[in-house]
């Protein structure tokens, strides 16, 4: 069992408080999402906020940065009460929020986004050289690979997130708030970002940090505040808490083992065979096989083309050549609809841009993909949909205070669960999940892992694309590693380790190994 909990911290009058929340509360109509939050944010410290999905973390951050106005309570800085009319005022006072969702103007370039609203230059025009130079500098400091003149709409999700972070770090700030900055990042970017956060702290900036990755919290946090159901459970010193204790504080119960046990090796004939697929701006010469009853993990660095490969496979972006057969049937170049009918689905990593209709109610989102299954006839029946929604909310543990909310009003993690529920509603045989647990809290992660396990035990096949190495290793029966658009390695059984995945994903020789590994695997298979 776990060690008894250490004592909570209370206000330390000597600490240099950069920002204080006094009795903050927020209600949307009759729904109270936060109540009575009193919190000191201390300069020169990293203050982590943890809690389950829907606990109110993002809402609290938006209150602190004045993106949302509180229903109760107020903020104070340096002992003075402050009432920011909007986020811009808060930024001017030195409080900046890096949103959980990406907030950038898609048609503008990276540098233009960074400097939006505070461009350098005078009457003779903006000074693009200076802005580009500074942008390049900031991007490099956080390990982003994009250039100042890249158009944001052309960037993959991870790079957009880094651009967003760069935007917050452009000027000197008193308080920087990160809302799940690492959810869309992979290991090396995470490492770089953690260094940035430490750098900020060392310069005396107060950092608020939200993450569901408790290892980051443990490595980084000077203080940890736990939220549950919109209330503050308490604040602890970071070094006092173990990851396990944090998880238990969040969830309010003890957690079981995270990953389900591995399944016996499969023998069945492959259900999905892909060969020689070429995807524009993505995969080169890609081939893979998938058997019923297995979890195939896909590893690789960010930008290695994993998302492109599967979007191309699904006909969601231009793809050429190649052959795709499912259960022996050639389904190359068919529409998404045909593949859905054949039992093949893809769950996108970009839940806001490609997954959910943010201003439509939950029920409509839930059934959009499975309309044909849910409503056999021509007509839609609202009652059926509500029943389904109730079932899915229970099954996937979607935490909402009202079933009538629009998808955009759900917390990030709950949106992810809704997306999962939506895709599962079509009753697929083969499920491709891109970043299955992005933004999901620790308590629910194991639920999702169990769920994937039960799917494959029922004879279905799952492909998991993940940037979280422990997840990839803990879940997969077999792992393919991608690098620069190519599948460069295939790992089985004991060879599935974090080191091997990282090695294959980054090693320069991997390019030479690739052919042999790929050929071997192809010969192994019937």
């Amino acid at each position, binding site marked *: 069992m776990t060690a008894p909990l250490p004592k909570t911290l209370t206000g330390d009058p000597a600490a240099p408080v950069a920002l204080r929340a006094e009795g903050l509360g927020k209600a949307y109509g009759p729904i109270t999402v936060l109540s009575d939050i009193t919190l000191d944010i201390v300069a020169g410290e990293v203050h982590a906020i943890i809690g389950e999905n829907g606990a109110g973390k993002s809402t609290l951050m938006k209150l602190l940065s004045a993106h949302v106005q509180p229903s109760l309570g107020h903020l104070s800085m340096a002992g003075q009460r402050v009432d920011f009319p909007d986020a811009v005022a808060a930024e001017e006072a030195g409080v900046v929020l890096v949103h959980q969702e990406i907030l950038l103007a898609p048609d503008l370039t990276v540098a233009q986004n960074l400097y939006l609203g505070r461009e350098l230059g005078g009457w003779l025009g903006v000074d693009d050289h200076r802005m580009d130079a500074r942008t390049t500098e900031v991007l490099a400091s956080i390990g982003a690979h994009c250039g100042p003149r890249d158009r944001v709409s052309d960037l993959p999700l991870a790079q957009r997130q880094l651009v967003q972070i760069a935007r917050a770090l452009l000027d000197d700030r008193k308080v920087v708030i990160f809302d799940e900055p690492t959810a869309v990042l992979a290991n090396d970017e995470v490492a770089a970002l953690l260094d940035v956060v430490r750098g900020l702290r060392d310069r005396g900036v107060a950092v608020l940090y939200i993450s569901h990755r408790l290892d980051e919290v443990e490595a980084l946090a000077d203080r940890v505040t736990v939220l549950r159901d919109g209330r503050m459970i308490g604040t602890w010193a970071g070094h006092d808490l173990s990851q396990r204790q944090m998880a238990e504080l969040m969830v309010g119960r003890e957690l079981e083992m995270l990953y389900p046990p591995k399944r016996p090796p499969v023998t069945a004939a492959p259900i999905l065979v892909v060969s020689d697929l070429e995807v524009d701006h993505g995969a080169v010469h890609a081939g893979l096989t998938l058997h019923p009853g297995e979890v195939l993990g896909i590893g690789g660095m960010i930008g290695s083309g994993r998302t492109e490969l599967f979007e191309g496979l699904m006909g969601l972006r231009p793809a050429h050549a190649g052959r795709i057969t499912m259960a022996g049937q050639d389904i190359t170049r068919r529409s998404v609809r045909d593949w859905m009918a054949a039992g093949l689905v893809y769950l996108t990593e970009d839940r806001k841009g490609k997954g959910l209709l943010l201003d439509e109610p939950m029920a409509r989102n839930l059934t959009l993909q499975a309309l044909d299954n849910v409503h056999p006839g*021509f007509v*839609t029946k609202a009652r059926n949909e509500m029943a389904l929604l109730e079932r899915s909310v229970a099954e996937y543990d979607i935490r909402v205070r009202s079933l009538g909310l629009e998808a955009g009003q759900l917390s990030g993690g709950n949106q992810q669960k809704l997306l999962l529920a*939506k895709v599962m509603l079509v009753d697929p045989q083969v499920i491709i999940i891109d970043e299955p647990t992005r933004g999901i809290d620790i308590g629910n992660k194991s639920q999702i892992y169990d769920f994937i396990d039960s799917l494959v035990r029922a004879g279905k096949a799952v492909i998991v694309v993940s940037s979280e190495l422990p997840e990839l290793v803990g879940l997969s029966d077999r792992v393919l590693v991608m690098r620069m658009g190519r599948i460069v390695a295939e790992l089985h059984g004991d060879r599935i380790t974090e080191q091997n995945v990282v090695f294959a994903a980054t090693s320069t020789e991997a390019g030479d190994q690739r052919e042999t590994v790929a050929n071997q695997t192809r010969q192994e298979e019937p």
Partner: protein
Amino acid sequence: MTSATSTRATPEPGRRIRWADMGPFLALALVIVIGTLINSNFVSGTNIANVVTRSAFIAIIAVGATFVISSGCLDLSVGSMMAFVTGIMILTMNRLEPSMGANAILVGAAVGLVVGAACGLLNGLIVTLGKIEPFIVTLGTMGIFRALITWLSDGGSIPIARELRDPYRPVYFGNLFGVPLPVVITLIVVLAGAFILYRTKYGRRCMAAGSNSDVARFSGVSVAWVRTLAYVIQGLCVAIAAICYIPRLGAATPTTGALWELQVITAVVIGGTLLRGGKARIWGTVAGALILEVIANLMVMSNFVSEYLVAAVQGVIIILAMLAHRFIR
């Protein structure tokens, strides 16, 4: 890209939406009240019947436009298409009349529906397969349809055969249990439209395509197909409007339906449908069509506006009605 819907401070989503939805009806009520104050004849039975009956054309076409707009597209060609379909129908009827008598009307109407659907299909295919801005495509086809009717009529007019006038007349001037037939037809079209849009799978997909076409695509919705079908529905609505229109004026000319596209889009937008797609208000659209027709009627009924300024007053009233329903709630 994602936009921050979640950060909107939305007080009481439920109540607010209901008020916003009432907007067009409030605006309609407002205009009617003004009308009553201006001229007591305004509320006379005949006048009301006249106004409601004649708003049928715009209302019917606007139902189709609601589909096109909520699926994320636009159709500027409806006015010209209407003229073209009317022309083809009259030519067909006149050709068939000697052999078939009044039955020619039925065949002509059927031909009209087919031609309308085909015109819509053309628009839809160019937009979806050609991947060109709907604005440009339908501006192009607007010119094409207009030119075709000018050519068919040799720059003059295409009148319907005398023999067909009387049998065809009731379609515009007749009643069903006291309700003018065009109103009945409009109601049927609107009910069918509302049913398709709100209660069928197609309707769902249509709004999804307009709301976020990427999400729709990733959910297995064929956005191209959904939009093409919306244009076909638009074409059918135009044909239905044409069927009601012929008995009223008895001829097609190169100016038939001129600028109706603007009226139609205005009716749709006044009705609360978003021009950028994803949200449709069929009943609002009908209210929008009525508002436009009532305002035009008021211009005739009232006497204090110089004839030169009618368009100005009309413009002012539309803007005021929109402002009112924005600030009332």
